[in-house]
């Protein structure tokens, strides 16, 4: 008897909840409908929770700063910019739902995101089908812009950065021979090694030995012993930071003095937590570095503003790229004098020598950017008792062939 009553009660409760929820959603839908007329909505596709939350949160921070700056200057075409944020929780399965919601419920004109290549590839076909501009502020892998003519990105691509860095190493540092180390169970590393190999060939640098490692390995004694007795100027290391630090430690242990150069997969303090003094002098390239001494007024303004809003913390690549992404879209809308993605898509595609906080951006015909400069960071001791930091070694100009 009690059970039956309980079930009845639960049923009533569930029905009323559903009804309430229904009211709620129709309410907010109505509000958004009216708001859509006087605001330009740009959607944020990224993670606020889960594995890549730090990328997503920083991107969002940058986007919000850009919207504030635009609105403080009177908005675009007399309308204010609103960032519509959602969270896919770093889950592949949620990415398409969130994209669909941004486009069809929130009626955004453009989406910025995702910071990762994999999730961008899931969202891009949906944006393409709905003819909404999607600009990824972080995806560096291949096969993104190929999805369609509404898909863009504003990150520095390894295919352009690695050759620029190779050129710098040969011309400025005088490297003629290198050892190449690839982590073969790491997609990123294998791809980057291929790019580096082409670049090294192009600039006449000899690869004296190629060594394979695996992500998760901790013992590199055999590979490093293979390097001994060979003459080379530096190590091109395409893997991630943990293995990079440990590898260099073994290199020093076996008495070699060379330094390492690699991509932003090495960009983490864990590099020197693992490698300690062995990684000092090692170089890592990245698309954005918070260079407080820069003479670029835009970058300087961005860094100052970010610092004052975030307890003096310096912005990273993701916040800067998120900022630039919104600014790029805003400028495209302004130039096209239209908020229709089908119209401002063209002016976005024609972006040339555009000044952003992460450098000068030109969108090429394939909707991928040429971005200059690429920053080469170096691990240096801070002087106070064994701690280390990134210092900017060079800002290398990037040109397309």
């Amino acid at each position, binding site marked *: 008897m009690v059970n039956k009553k309980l079930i009845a009660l639960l049923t009533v409760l569930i029905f009323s909840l559903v009804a309430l929820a229904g009211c709620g959603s129709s309410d907010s839908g109505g509000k958004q409908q009216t708001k859509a007329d006087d605001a330009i909505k740009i959607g944020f596709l990224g993670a606020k929770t889960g594995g890549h939350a730090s990328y997503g949160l920083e991107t969002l921070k940058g986007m919000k700063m850009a919207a504030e700056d635009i609105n403080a200057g009177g908005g675009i075409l007399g309308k204010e910019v609103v960032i519509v944020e959602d969270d896919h929780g770093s889950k592949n399965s949620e990415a398409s739902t969130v994209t669909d919601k941004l486009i069809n419920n929130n009626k955004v004109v453009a989406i910025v995101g995702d910071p990762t290549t994999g999730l961008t590839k899931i969202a891009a076909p949906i944006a393409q089908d709905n003819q909404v501009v999607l600009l990824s502020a972080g995806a560096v892998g291949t096969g993104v812009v190929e999805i369609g003519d509404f898909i863009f990105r504003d990150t520095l691509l390894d295919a352009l950065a690695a050759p620029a860095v190779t050129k710098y190493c040969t011309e400025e540092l005088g490297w003629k021979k290198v050892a190449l180390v690839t982590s*073969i*169970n790491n997609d990123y590393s294998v791809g980057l090694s291929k790019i580096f190999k082409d670049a090294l060939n192009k600039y006449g640098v000899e690869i004296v030995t190629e*060594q*394979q*490692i*695996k992500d*998760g*390995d*901790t*013992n590199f*004694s*055999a*590979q490093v*012993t*293979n390097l*001994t*007795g060979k003459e080379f100027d530096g190590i091109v290391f395409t893997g991630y930071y*943990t293995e990079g*630090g*440990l590898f260099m*430690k073994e290199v020093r*242990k*076996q*008495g070699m003095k060379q330094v390492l150069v690699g991509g932003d997969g090495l960009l983490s303090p*864990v590099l020197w*937590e*693992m490698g*300690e003094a062995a990684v000092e002098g090692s170089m890592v390239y990245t698309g954005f570095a918070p260079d407080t001494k820069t003479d670029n007024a835009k970058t300087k303004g961005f860094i100052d503003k970010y610092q004052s809003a975030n307890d003096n913390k310096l912005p990273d690549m993701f916040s800067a790229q998120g900022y630039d992404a919104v600014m790029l879209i805003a400028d495209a809308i302004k130039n096209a004098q239209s908020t229709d993605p089908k119209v401002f898509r063209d002016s976005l595609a024609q972006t040339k020598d555009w000044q952003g906080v992460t450098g000068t951006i030109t969108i090429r015909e394939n909707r991928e950017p040429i971005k200059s400069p690429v920053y080469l960071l170096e691990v240096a001791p801070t002087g106070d008792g064994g701690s280390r930091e990134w210092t900017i070694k060079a800002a290398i100009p990037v040109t397309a062939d």
Partner: protein
Amino acid sequence: MFWQQLINGITLGSTYALIALGYTMVYGIIQLINFAHGEIYMIGAFVGVIAVAVFKINIFLALFMAMAVCIIIGVSVERIAYKPLRRSTRLAPLISAIGVSIFLQTLMTVLAGPQAVGFPQVVDDQLYHIGSVTVSKVQLIILILAGVMMIGLQLIVKYVKIGKAMRAASEDYDTASLMGINVNRVISFTFAIGSSLAAAGGVMVGMYFNSIHPLMGVMAGLKAFCAAVLGGIGSIPGAMLGGLFLGIAEVTGVAIGYGGYRDAIAFTLLILVLLFKPTGLLGRPIQRKV
């Protein structure tokens, strides 16, 4: 170069051998493959790091601390997870071992975080040059310590009373207990020795490769298990030989340019040995009771 790589291989192999000893002894006595053994090794490494980095304890003292902690854990695991299942099917304690292994991995991941932790530089890394070969102080320490421990174990098993009891129990568990041997004590002792050796291996590996993480026991445990089977599971000299053999084979593979296949090498060797000599290199032929 050849001799240098050989030293790399022997150093790696001796750490495998230390872990393999635990597998082999436990299997020899209760026919259980203790899959949680790799996790004991991992915990040993973490205790070593905490002792050295947080409490600034001398590395040798830290080694003993790690061994002591792991003896307690190893023996408790046996009491909690295996002893109640001793009279059930062979499969039950095996599953229980896998459960313990996953539990310990997860526990350490929660406590220490999923990132790899650097092992502080405890021994100033002096290099000794002998001809064209360079040996580091850490490598020497590992080789000497591993050697001393293995010889010590062999002496215990051969000449000390509890060692004789272990051999008797491994010969025939039930008869041994009928002869007045306290088999439970023997089993606890076996777990204690095995765990302490694994802990020592963990600290040494941390010291040598400078990085430890909560999942380090998985691959090392599998490799050591391979080493034990290669040498002939149940045989103590076999575990040492198997460990060294595996370490050298792996390093040789990397040295000739197959760095990506280093894990595959271990398991391919295992399959080959099992195909041609199913009892392992030093294993006794299987006797059929008539």
